[in-house]
């Protein structure tokens, strides 16, 4: 998922510093440039923009588990439970690796691969889009 942000420069003066962030696609900022540089809503930088290729291919023999749907990513079946998988967890094709919640329905996502989890790519409770990489697996 990608969000535009706004121009980045640091304006230093004796009283205060204003910092505005610029987006990676070079789009113009929707900032009012009338008087002083406005204290504008700074957006958190999101995950890599869709850009030219869908995602950077995993190095060597690692493969990625990609999101088959749009929703909110959860690492555990409930807030009190332990995460389904951690780095180093062995998975099989039927292993549930996470939940993606869409429209109030909790969907269990299966690994569909055999190997070891080497990376968890999304933070808990963050939104994910179709095709977004969720985990890296080293097959065995």
């Amino acid at each position, binding site marked *: *998922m990608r969000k535009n942000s706004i121009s980045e420069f640091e304006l230093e003066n004796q009283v205060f510093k204003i910092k505005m962030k610029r987006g990676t696609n070079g789009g113009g900022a929707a900032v009012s440039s009338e008087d002083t540089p406005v204290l504008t809503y700074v957006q958190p930088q999101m995950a890599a923009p869709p850009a030219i290729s869908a995602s950077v291919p995993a190095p060597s023999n690692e493969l990625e588990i990609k999101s088959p749907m749009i929703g909110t990513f959860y690492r555990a079946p409930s807030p009190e439970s332990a995460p389904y998988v951690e780095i180093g967890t062995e998975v099989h094709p039927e292993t549930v690796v996470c939940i993606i919640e869409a429209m109030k329905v909790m969907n269990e996502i299966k690994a569909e691969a055999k190997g070891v989890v080497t990376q968890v790519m999304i933070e808990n409770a963050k939104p994910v889009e179709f095709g977004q990489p969720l985990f890296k697996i080293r097959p065995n």
Partner: protein
Amino acid sequence: MFEKVLVANRGEIAVRIIRACKELNIRTVAIYSEADANSMHVQLADEAICIGKAAASESYLRIDRIVSAAEITDVDAIHPGYGFLAENAHFADVCESCNIRFIGPNSRAMNALEDKAVSRALAKKAGVPTPPGSEGVVENEQDALTVAKRIGYPVMIKAVAGGGGRGMRVAHNDISLVKGFHTARSEAEKAFGNSGVYIEKFIENPHHVEFQILGDNRGHIIHLGERDCSIQRRNQKVVEESPSPLIDNKFKKLREKMGKAAIKIAEEANYTNAGTVEFIVDNNGNFYFLEMNKRIQVEHPITEEVTGIDLVRYQIMLAMGEPLRHSQSDIQFKGHAIECRINAEDPFDDFRPSPGRIEMYYQPGGRGVRVDSHAYAGYTIPSAYDSMIGKLITYGKDRREAMDKMSRALSEYMITGIKTTISFQQAILQDPNFRRGVYSTTFIEQLLSGARRELIEEKA
């Protein structure tokens, strides 16, 4: 006021909607398939969510994914554009039940006009003329023959669920009627999942004239004049203009009559937001209701130029619950506007689609020239969707000026790397009958067959 809107579409109309939102200070969310990752609407929106693979059935038609995307981005409303889910009453219902406003007509109005047979019945109820024809669906060939005898040949057999010019057959006698009845039914079943057909009098050399409608949630409905869309190729519009030269030159009184009829249809359906009532007009100035399109249309810009009213902005305001700000008498028509659809097709190879990478792109400009397009140099047109890459609109103080500007603008429009219909559009603009404003829906067929004849004669 909406704070955030999700645009459930792609291409030029998604760009159009994003522009209207930006001008209203509304943040935008684009949805896109994997094939559209580099599309302009994705670049322009504030946020973008990938919703699936290239095929529309895997992405732009996926109600579940679109609503999920709307939920995680927490939008207030969805604009469906045209095509895809724009006239899908179920989608409108799902949005509303998820507390997301649907920027378009209410689902009841959509259902009141859900197919052509139902719409015909509604028009009759509203006292608006429809082409003589069957009462509803024609069940068997005996009934078909009875209807044809009553209204007289030639007749047209039409699929009730048809669209985009498909599912139609003309019959000139009993034999072709029976044959056409059965083939139309099986075609319709295959293409639309609904074999229902009805029969209408076939009006020869018809003119296609449609009226733009706006309605608020207090029951007020106005029309914004007509668009003449008779220049079609295989029932797909190619050039549109407003006002209609047929009305201006021959049947001036039709504007008021047809405008009133359009409003009656919309009122009968309790219509809200933007819509278009389509009519056919014969050479004697008789008009008949065809169908109502329950969405913003491709050719909406020409109405915007002639009335000075931003239709997409109006859609958003109406969806927010605002009342219409114009009464019918407030609507003024000034000047003349023409639109040419620019398709990635090869006019010299039977309009074969020409997807691929645009190398060089220079769009025309200057006074009275408007381009609504998502194309840019380096953009690769995906093969998964329709071939329209943009719309060129010109506006002048009269038809002559609008035409001169269109020819001038077409001559400047440079797109390399793919084939486009720009040269074909120029041929239309230069045609003497077009310039005189004398044409019907047979225009392009005649233009093309004349062109072929010349080619053959040249080669002989």
